[in-house]
Structures are given as structure tokens and as C-alpha cells.
């Protein structure tokens, strides 16, 4: 397999994963904006949404004011924003297109139809009802793509690179999402309690699509240490850092078996995994949640760079 092919498969999956994450973030931001704030008006925290999506700097370079409508357009449709859903879908599709031969027909059709259908969306009729529809649709398409991949792709190197992209991106997204709201999870806020705090805790879980599974898993109300446990450390939670890390280790293990290269990447991935396995909600709390998450983000990014070097991506 060509190094460029591996790179395209890796980025194709990263961008499909990112499209799904951005769609969820816009949905959460929109939901927030419908919730009455304490006192007067509504909670409106589109700046947090931009931060979680990693787009705040790009947004500020282009817009002076943060308004719901312009943030939504920026995150959904703006080609100048490399992480907008439109850009993600286009980049994923162009990566897929350039390595068309490494994809199955089902995967390509899922990607290509998503791209075609998205282009048919008329930005001027994106009212509230339509907005939620488009966001749901984006998640459905990401699910379709993943299903097509899991159901049809040969379990060889291509599969490993594609999955590697998915889980490197997902780990990054989860860590970033939680980092923007980390203060809600600080022990000091536990004391305050109250409606506002519960709502904020639920928002964090929604950002990683875990509010329902949390209740099923823990069978009791939202508590910060359990939420940290769930989102960061639990191997059962499909967006937790641990879950992502397990997948990255397993894909790199398989890749080194198949190719005989990549030992350095695998060692780095195992180090991240070992760190997560050795952590507890308490130890994270002592170390500082925000620092813990930023440390993960930088290690995860370094791992991606290392993998690209090991497998001739450049």
C-alpha cells in the first residue's frame, strides 16, 4: 500500500468523525440556546461551541461578533473553516476519491452521496427546524459511512489506517469537548450543586453522546467523578479516551504485525494507554483535569505525527 493511500484513508476517516462531532456540538449549542438562563434570557454559549470545535481563532479572524446565526453558518457551511461540516465532508470525500481503489464500492457510495446531497442544501432555508434536520442527517451519514466500512472493508492495512484515523480524531474531539467545560467538573462545583450544575453536567455528556448510556451504566444521578470516569477512563464507553486509546493500540499492533514497521508509534500509543489505565477520577482531580486533558491532546497529536512518519505518509 502506498504511503499516500494510508494517509488518505487516515484523513478520510478523521474528517468523517469530525463532521459528526461538529454536528453534535452545534446541536448541543442550539439546545443550550433554548434553555432559559438563571434570571433573564437564555443561555447562549456559542463561544464555548467554537472552542470545543477548535475553531474559535479562525472564527474571530473572520467575524467581529459571536451570534448564533453566524456561528452556525461558520460551523456548518463555511468553506474557509477547515472543520466546518461542509469542509469535513468535502475533505473526506476528496481523500476517498484520490484512493478510490482502496475503498469498497459501499464506502465510496456512502461518501459520494453524502457529498452530493450536502451540496444540494440551500443555505438560505436553514431555519431552526431545518438546522436540526441537517445535523441529524450528518450524523446518519457518518453512521452510514462507518457501517459501510465495517461491513465491507477487508481487514487489512487499509482498515487499520482508516480506524486509526477514526479513533485518533475521536480521542481528540472528546478531550477537547470536555476541556471547554472542565470547570463544571471541578470538585468545588460539586458543593454548589443545584439545577444549573446538573444541566451543565448533562451538557457535557451530550457533547460526547453519552447522556443516556451514563444513566444506564451508573443507575444514579450525575456526579462529576463518575462523569470523569465515564468519559475519560471507562473502556466500555465508545467515546472515552480509554476506548479510543485501546483501539489505536490494537490497530497499531495489527499494522506492525502486517508490515514490520511502526514499532515507535506502537510504543507511544501503549504509553498513552498505560497512563489512562493507571489513572483514577481521584488522581485526575489531584493532577488537575484541564492539565490532564491538554496533556492527552498533545500526546495524541504527537502520536499521529509519529505514525505518519513511520508509515511514509509524508
Amino acid at each position, binding site marked *: 500500500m502506498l504511503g499516500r493511500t494510508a494517509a488518505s484513508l487516515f484523513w478520510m476517516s478523521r474528517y468523517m468523525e469530525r463532521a459528526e462531532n461538529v454536528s453534535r456540538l452545534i446541536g448541543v449549542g442550539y439546545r443550550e440556546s433554548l434553555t432559559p438562563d438563571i434570571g433573564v434570557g437564555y443561555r447562549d454559549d456559542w463561544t464555548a461551541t467554537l472552542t470545543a470545535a477548535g475553531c474559535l481563532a479562525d472564527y474571530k479572524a473572520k467575524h467581529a461578533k459571536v451570534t448564533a446565526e453566524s456561528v452556525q453558518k461558520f460551523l456548518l457551511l463555511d468553506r474557509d473553516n477547515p472543520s466546518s461540516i461542509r469542509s469535513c465532508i468535502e475533505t473526506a470525500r476528496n481523500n476517498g476519491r484520490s484512493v478510490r481503489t482502496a475503498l469498497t464500492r459501499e464506502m465510496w457510495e456512502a461518501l459520494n452521496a453524502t457529498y452530493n446531497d450536502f451540496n444540494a442544501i440551500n443555505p438560505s432555508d436553514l431555519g431552526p427546524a431545518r438546522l436540526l434536520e441537517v445535523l441529524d442527517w450528518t450524523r446518519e451519514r457518518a453512521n452510514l459511512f462507518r457501517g459501510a466500512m465495517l461491513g465491507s472493508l477487508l481487514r487489512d492495512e487499509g482498515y487499520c489506517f482508516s480506524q486509526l484515523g477514526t479513533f485518533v480524531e475521536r480521542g481528540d474531539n472528546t478531550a477537547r469537548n470536555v476541556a471547554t467545560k472542565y470547570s463544571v467538573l471541578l470538585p468545588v462545583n460539586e458543593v454548589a450543586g443545584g439545577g444549573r450544575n446538573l444541566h451543565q453536567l448533562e451538557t457535557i455528556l451530550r457533547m460526547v453522546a453519552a447522556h443516556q448510556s451514563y444513566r444506564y451504566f451508573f443507575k444514579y444521578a450525575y456526579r462529576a467523578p463518575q462523569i470523569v470516569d465515564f468519559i475519560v477512563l471507562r473502556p466500555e464507553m465508545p467515546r472515552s479516551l480509554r476506548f479510543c486509546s485501546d483501539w489505536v493500540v490494537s490497530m497499531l499492533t495489527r499494522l506492525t504485525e502486517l*508490515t514490520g514497521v511502526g514499532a515507535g508509534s506502537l510504543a507511544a500509543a501503549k504509553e498513552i494507554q498505560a497512563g489512562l489505565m493507571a489513572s483514577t477520577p481521584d488522581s485526575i482531580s489531584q493532577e488537575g483535569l484541564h492539565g490532564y486533558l491538554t496533556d492527552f491532546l498533545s500526546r495524541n497529536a504527537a502520536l499521529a505525527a509519529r505514525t505518519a512518519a513511520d508509515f511514509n505518509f509524508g
Partner: protein
Amino acid sequence: MLKKQAYAADTKAIFDEMLRADASPRPAYAALAAWLERQSQGGIRRKQQEADAIFRRLGITFAVYGSAESNERLIPFDLMPRVISAGEWRFLERGIEQRVRALNAFLYDIYHRQEIIRAGKIPAEMINDNEAFLPEMMGFDPPRQVYSHIVGTDIVRTGEDQFFVLEDNMRTPSGVSYMLENRETMMHLFPEIFAAHRVAPVEHYPELLRQTLESVAPATCEGDPRIAVLTPGIYNSAFFEHAFLADQMGVELVQGSDLLVDEGALWMRTIRGRERVHVLYRRVDDAFLDPLNFRPDSMLGVPGLFDLYRAGAVTIVNAPGTGIADDKAIYAYVPEIIQFYTGEKPLLNNVTTWRCAKDDERAYVLENLHELVVKEVHGSGGYGMLIGPRSTKQQRQDFAERIKARPTNYIAQPTLALSTCPAFTASGLAPRHVDLRPFVLMGERVRVTPGGLTRVALKKGSLVVNSSQGGGTKDTWVLED
């Protein structure tokens, strides 16, 4: 849906592939015409929509250069198949094989002793001053002495037995992926009509292409040769085809940046390190193949590739320099070329061609612009061409000036009354002009894929079948006895 009398009236004096002037179907079309009479327009329209959806979903698109609003377009696919009888095909096949063998012999000769010039059949300046002639190829023997491994011969028909070769595409002909996908789509949409016809299959083309490529691997290659398809990338108009063929053959699709020349070999960068490439099916033009030997600004090729080729370490398919054989200025000499190398009379006709470089021929062209088709010698894709009978006075005057300014740049041909075939239009079935591009593979042996790509001018009365000019494609059936 088919109303034979009305359809036949519409064909006027033009040769229609389906119906005779008296509205009776020709034998090869009899079953199809009967089937068409039973179909409803709405039913066919639904199938047409289904076909369009299939093509869009699969991403069978081509890029249109210079059109910003939609840089990927669908080539219109017309559902009505074009049918060729077994007898017609046997004749075409023989004629095409004769022609490509002669042109390959011509290429060998031109890049070696140039006997044909010594014999006075072609003036030396026609070769030496021709931009398509590649002096770097002189004295080099490509494996099996094959230059054009993949050829797409453009053929038009004007009557029962009148076939003309319009162009010999000996460089990097495209369109074969449409031939294959058109057939797939038709078999999916209309299994019942395939049951009523014995249509020669085309789906083994990728396998034959692979065999052809393997058969011309460098002599030094031990074991199974490694093949790669070289594409300029996703923004090239034929990218879909490059990816499609690589996929169907099960070989790598590479870009210039994936390749490197080192230690006297061609390598591709893989996740395991580098791997040898023995045969490169390139879909990149000669000028862009190797920045060290040709255009230095090319980002699409591989530095040092041509030297490697000349050293026999890799085979480039088609060979560089084949453009001299399909040059429009050389075209007029092809009948001579066939006679010279095969000793036979050409089976397929050439279209009469006037070369504007010659004083007397130019005078004739300028006097008869309203009847002729004028083409740029190096033009392609239907650009830079004048169709006399369809032109305005102003356009003819402009062209006359251009011809006088650069006579060597133009040739002229009579306007051929291209045959028509039924096409599915907004107002039902109607005759539309078509051409035919059969695909030829030349390696160990010559193979002509039965059928090929039929292009159809979907605009009423139009003679331009190029996809960049509103043309579409059809499935092409060669019937077996």
C-alpha cells in the same frame, strides 16, 4: 414508444442505424425495435432517471476545465443501445487491426531507419518539424516493439458499408470506463433485452489490459511484473477512469509524488518502505512525464523516469512519442502508411483531408469553407473547430483569417453526414448523430474489444459528439452469430 413512420421521417436523407428509409428495422435492430414499440415513454423516463442516479452515486463524472460552478459533471448516458451486427463487426475488427499494426510499424520505423521517408512516401519535414515527434525516442526498442498498447480508433459511418476512421488515438485514449459502466448499467436496468439478444461481453477488458501490460514488462523483470497506473490526480478530467482501471486490474493507482527513481529502478513509496514498479500505465502526457527530460516545471511526473525507460528498467505504456502517429497532419498519409508496411489496401477509409499548408489545397479550403469542417492540427475535444454548414458568415471570415495567418495549423475535411441512432430525448425517441470508439489492446497480440464507446450528439442536428460539447454516451452491442 417507438413510432416507426414518424421516426423514419425524422432521419431524412441520413443513414439511420436502426431503421431504413421505408421505416423497416435493419436485421440487427429487429428485436430491439419490436421491444421499443411495446415500451411506454414514462417507463423509459423512469429508467433514465434511475440510470442518472446510479452514475451520480458512483461518481462517474468528468471534470470540465474552466467551468467554475460545477467542476464535476455527469456525462449524459443515453439508454438506447447502439447495435452492430456480427458481420459489420468482423469487418471493422479486421480494418482496425490492420490500421493499428501499420501505425505501430510506422512508429518503429520513424524512430529507427525512417525507411518511409527514404522511400519518398512522407516528406521529412512532416516528421522532423512535428511537435509530436520525440527525437529522444530515436534508436530505442520498446519491449515487443510495441509503442501504442492501448488505442482508441474513432470511427464514423455514413452508409450501409461506408465506415471512415476519423482519428487514431494512439497516445492515451480515454473512455473505456464508460464502455464498461454503460454495459453494467444496462444489464442492471434491462436484463430482459439482454435475454433476447446475444451481446458479446466486454467485461473482461480490465483482465486483458492487465495481461497486455504484463506482456510488455522489461526483459530484466524476474517473477511477476508490478504494474501501476499513473494519474495526474483527482482534478484530471479522466480521474474516475484512472481509478476505475487500477481498481479493476487490482494494481496501484499512483501520482508522480508516490514514485521515485533510484539505483536504476522505479519505486513507489509504500507503508513498508519502497517497492519496485516494472510497468507504468501512465495517463499523463509525454511533456509532463519527466521534468529532467521534458517540461522542467512538471509536478505530475517523475524525475529521471525517461532515462530509466531507455535503459530498459521500466516500461512506459503507451510509449512516449506515439503522438506522431495520430497527429492530424500525419492522418492524411495513413492510407500510404498501411500500404507501405502491410502491402495491403486499407480496409477502412480515411476521410478526404486537405492540408492548409499546401497552397492549392488551402485555396480550395478557403473557397469552400461553408461546406467543410476545419480542424486545428493539434486541437482535440471538439475545441477550435469550424463546421462549415452550421457556421455564420462571421465565423467563416474569422476562420479564413486564422488559416491564412497559420496555414500549417489547419486541416479541412468534408462535412460527413454521420449516421444516426435512436436516442431518448425529451420528446421521445429521435435520431441523433453518433460515432464509435472501439478500444484496441496491443501486446503479445492485438485484441479489439467487441463494441467500444458510442458517443452521441444529444442536441438535435448536432454533429459534435464530444462530452465537453454536450455529447453523451451509449452502450454498444456487438451481436454474436
